[in-house]
């Protein structure tokens, strides 16, 4: 979407309640452009630090770019509190189960399609654990039209990392992926390591999947996070965001 000085820009951003796994009511932050649309949708899967300000900000960024955006609180069952306290509680409990996250994501996907200004297409986006969750949703949820996995770790998992909460390594679900995939990674990241990204790419290529991977020099984990000076890499982040917008514009509009 090209934005000019003559473009009308407006949005409504608010906390809403959607139905997640087990039909549980969970909070989600929704930002949607004003106007008749129709607009494509994007579900944002937040990262391990929780349902925090960066993800609320990113949700508004998507709306400003003309997307119906929603970011469900994947840690809702741990109760309310400051995001870091809730995230610490979830970490102490051994993380949220993959199946629950995918079902929460499905609830958000279905919710976006019910909006009167939806164009019927929905993508998924996530960073860090959210990148992994977005990929899981692309493989396991229904109605995903495009997936952006930004440095999702543990897509490749060793047998001894699997448990009740993580029963299957996401890479082993690749056959079920039936939408275009964008991958963005830092070459100085350790999770996913460059070798794991290569392994994931080899599997996608072997199965003939529609994907594009972009690897950035001088960037490690979380290099889009402007609120984390230690992680943020302005040049790489600016280029990466352009790739995100181009990818979703191409596949969802």
């Amino acid at each position, binding site marked *: 979407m090209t934005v000019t000085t003559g473009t009308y820009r407006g949005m409504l951003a608010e906390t809403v309640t959607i139905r997640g796994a087990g039909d549980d009511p969970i909070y989600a932050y929704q930002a949607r452009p004003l106007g008749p649309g129709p607009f494509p949708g994007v579900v944002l899967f937040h990262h*391990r630090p929780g349902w925090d300000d960066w993800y609320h900000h990113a949700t508004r960024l998507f709306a400003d770019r003309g997307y119906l955006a929603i970011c469900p609180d994947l840690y809702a069952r741990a109760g309310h509190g400051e995001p*870091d306290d809730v995230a*610490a509680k979830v970490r*102490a409990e051994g993380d949220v189960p993959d199946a629950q996250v995918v079902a929460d994501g499905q609830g958000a996907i279905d919710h976006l399609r019910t909006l009167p200004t939806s164009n019927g297409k929905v993508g998924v986006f996530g960073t860090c*654990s959210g*990148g992994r969750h977005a990929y899981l949703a692309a493989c396991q949820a229904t109605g995903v039209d495009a997936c952006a996995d930004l440095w999702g*770790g543990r897509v490749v998992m060793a047998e001894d990392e699997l448990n009740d909460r993580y029963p299957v390594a996401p890479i082993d679900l690749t056959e079920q992926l039936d939408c275009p995939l964008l991958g963005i990674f830092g070459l100085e990241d350790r999770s996913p390591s460059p070798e794991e990204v290569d392994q994931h790419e080899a599997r996608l290529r072997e199965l003939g999947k529609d994907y594009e991977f972009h690897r950035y020099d001088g960037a490690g984990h979380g290099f889009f996070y402007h609120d984390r000076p230690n992680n943020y890499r302005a040049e790489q982040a600016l280029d990466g965001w352009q790739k995100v917008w181009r990818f979703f514009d191409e596949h969802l509009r």
Partner: protein
Amino acid sequence: MCTDITEHATLTGSAKGPQGWFTAASAEVAYDHPTHATVEHAIMVSVRDGDADGQQRVAVELDRSSARDLARALLRAADAADDYEGDR
């Protein structure tokens, strides 16, 4: 990304958080992305109350070197306390 490193401890004592003193019942020690410390990963200590909600928390985020310094200081103090009490 996030690591899967989390250790647990059972505590008997008290801690002071934003709402004042509370009974400290447990602690988690993780190595993961910090919220405030300016390192990519930090040793993150959460001291918690015994309520089911675990609403009261004192959080500390340290780099690995200072986490070891703190751990050694705790052990030195506990050893000295054992000597003082004649427990060893």
